[in-house]
C-alpha cells in the first residue's frame, strides 16, 4: 500500500541519513493527499527514535545524530507549509533550551544531548557554549520553554548553574520552567543544593527524565 510505503520511506530516510530520500518521500506524501502530521509522527519521528536508540547502544555517533537531524529538518521544510495550510499544528513533546554555562566552552556532550532530545520529539534550542545567565532566562521566556538544560564540565563553572536558577527566582519565573543540570562534575547532591529540578548522569538518562517530566510521570526535584 502506497501510504505505508511512503511512511516507511520517511522513517528509513532518517535511519539511512538520506536527505534526498526524505525530501522525495515528503513531496510524495503531499501529492498523495496524505496527512503531513502522520508523515512526521509515523514516519520521520519513528526514524529519529531508531537513530537515538542506535546511539545509546553506541552503534552510531554524533555525526550520524546530526545528519539524522538535518534529514528530519529537510523533510519538515516540505511538510510544514502543508500543515499550516491545513490549519493544523505539529505536536511536540516539549520545548527545551539548553547550553553550556558561562565560562565553560565544552561543547560535544551538550550537542549530543540536544540531538538525542530531538530524536525523542523535543523542540530544542541549543544556545551554544559560554552562555550568559540572562541568555538562558530570556531564551526560555522567548521560546516558552518547558525545560532549561545547563551543562557544566568544570567544578569552577558549576556555580553558574546556580546563578541561572537564582535569576529565575528573582524574576519570578522559577515555577514556569523545569531546570535540568548535568556535566562531568555535577551530581544529584549539587542539583538538590541549588534547587534544580533534575540531574542526570548521562545524556540517555537526561532524555528519559525529560520525557517523564514533561508528561508528568516524574515529579520535579527527583534525580537519577
Amino acid at each position, binding site marked *: 500500500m502506497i501510504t505505508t510505503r511512503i511512511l516507511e520511506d520517511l522513517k528509513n530516510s532518517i535511519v539511512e541519513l538520506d536527505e534526498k530520500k526524505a525530501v522525495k518521500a515528503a513531496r510524495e506524501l503531499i501529492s498523495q493527499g496524505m496527512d503531513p502530521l502522520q508523515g512526521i509522527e509515523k514516519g520521520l519521528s519513528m526514524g529519529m527514535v531508531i537513530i537515538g536508540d542506535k*546511539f545509546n547502544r553506541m552503534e552510531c555517533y554524533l555525526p550520524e545524530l546530526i545528519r539524522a537531524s538535518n534529514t528530519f529538518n529537510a523533510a519538515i521544510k516540505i511538510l510544514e507549509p502543508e500543515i499550516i495550510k491545513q490549519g493544523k499544528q505539529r505536536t511536540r513533546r516539549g520545548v527545551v533550551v539548553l547550553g553550556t554555562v558561562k565560562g565553560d566552552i565544552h*561543547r560535544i556532550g551538550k550537542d549530543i544531548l540536544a540531538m538525542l532530545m530531538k530524536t525523542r520529539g523535543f523542540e530544542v534550542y541549543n544556545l551554544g557554549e559560554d552562555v550568559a545567565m540572562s541568555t538562558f532566562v530570556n531564551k526560555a521566556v522567548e521560546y516558552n520553554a518547558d525545560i532549561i538544560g545547563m551543562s557544566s564540565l568544570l567544578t*569552577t563553572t558549576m556555580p553558574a548553574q546556580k546563578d541561572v536558577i537564582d535569576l529565575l527566582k528573582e524574576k519570578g519565573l522559577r515555577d514556569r520552567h523545569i531546570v535540568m543540570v548535568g556535566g562531568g562534575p555535577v551530581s544529584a547532591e549539587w542539583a538538590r543544593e541549588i534547587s534544580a529540578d533534575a540531574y542526570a548522569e548521562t545524556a540517555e538518562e537526561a532524555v528519559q527524565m525529560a520525557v517523564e517530566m514533561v508528561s508528568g510521570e516524574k515529579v520535579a526535584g527527583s534525580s537519577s
Partner: protein
Amino acid sequence: MIGFLEVIDRAMAGRHCSETEFDMEVVVPKIQEVVAKYMIKYDPDNPVPADDDLADRVFQAGLELYRDVGTYCPDTERIIRFSEEELREALAEAPSAPVFGEGKDAKTLVARKPESNALPWCFIGAGGAAVSNEELYASIMEAYASFLPLADSITAPTIASVNGRTVRAGSPLEVMAAIRATVLAREALQRGGRPGLPIMNCIASAGSDTAKIAGSQFGLRPSDGWLIGATAELKLEFQRFNEIAFVTALGGHVNAETAPILGGYCGGPEGVAVTNVAYHLSCIIAMRGSSQLTFPIHFKYGCTTTRDVTWAVSVSSQAISRNSHFPFFILSYTAAGPMTEMCLYEIASAITASVASGASIEFGGVAKATRVDHFTPMEPRLASEVAHAAVRMTRKEANEIVKKLLQRYEGNFDSPPVGKKYEECWDIHRKTPNEDYVNLYKRVKTELSELGIQF
C-alpha cells in the same frame, strides 16, 4: 619547523569557516575517509593488537587527516593548515629529550617504543580532579611526594574553594586559587621530601590564561610542565595560544593536552585512533609542546578503560611510538572510585595496555575525575607499580592480561561504585592508607601477579 609566529599568522589568515562547518564538513568526512582508505578496523577481541602494519597505517591516516584538516581557531573562525612537508619537518625536529624537574629529581623524558625495555615516565597524582579545600590539597600533595617512590612528576588536583569560597571560572577567586595551588604545591613537595619533583599539569586550578599566568609567578619553574589543552576536536582558542606565547618566552615546557572523544565527532574507536595521531602532530607544530598528554575518552561512560577506548589507546600509542620520537603520555580515567576492586582492575588494564604499546603514563582520574575528594595516593601508586611491571611485556602478553581484566569490570560501567573519599580511606596526618585499603590493594596485587603482571 615553522615558527610560532607563522602559526599565529595562519590563525589570522587561514581559510574562513564556521565552527559547525569545520566539525561536520571538514573533520568528520576526512576521518571517515582515512579510516576507510587505510583499512582501519576495530577488533574487540584484541584490545591490545600486535600488528605493526596496522599501527603504521593508523599513523599514515593520522598524518593525512591533520594535513587536510589542520587546527581550527574559534576566535578568528579560521583554519590553521600545514603542508605534509612542514609536518614531516616538525616530526624530525620535534623535542626528543626534554628535561623536567630540579636537583636529584631532574630527569630526561624520552619516547618509548612498543614492548620497550625503557621505563615509562610515571606522571602521577590526581589528574586535575577537584579537592574541596586548601588543607586537603596540601595534605594530598605532600602524600604524593612521600608515598609515590616511582613518581617522576606530579599531577596536582584542582582546588574547589579558597578561604571557604567556591572558586568560579573567570573570577578573581580563580586567580587566587591558581596562586594558592602553586604556593601550597611547592611547599607540600618540599615537606614530602622531594622538592625537585616537577609538577607537570600546571596549573590545574586555572581555567583561564590569566589565572594560569598569574599563578605561575608564585613558584612555578621552567622545568615544570604547563598543561595547555586543545578543545575537541582539533581546536585551539586564543587563550591557549596566549599561554603558549607566555611559556615559550619563559623557556618552559608546554605539555600539550588532547582528548579525542569516542562517540563525538571522531565517531568510533577507529576514528579516535587516527585523531589521536593527528593531535600528536598538532601538539608539536601548533602547540609547540615538549610532550603530548592525551586521553581518548568514552562519551557515554566518561572514562578511558572501556574495551573500545583501550583498543584506540593501544593502536594509536603503537602508531605514534613507532613513527615519532616526540614523547607522549596516556592519561587514564577510571569509572570506579577509590578503594574499590573495579578501580584497581581498571588501572591495571589501562596501564598495561598503554605501557606495552609504547606510551609513558599519567595517572590519573579516579571516579572519572568528577567527584570532589574521590582520589587518594593509593591509585597512582598502583598505576606506577603496574607501569614498571609492564616493561618488556609483549603486546600479546598484555592483550591476554587486559582481556581477563576487562571481563572482571566491563559489565559494571552503567553503575560503577563511587568508592570512598580521601579522608575515608586515608590517614591525612600520617599520610598513609587505612588498613582496609591496604588489604584490598594487597589482594588485588596478588591477583594481578597471577594474571602475569610481575611486580
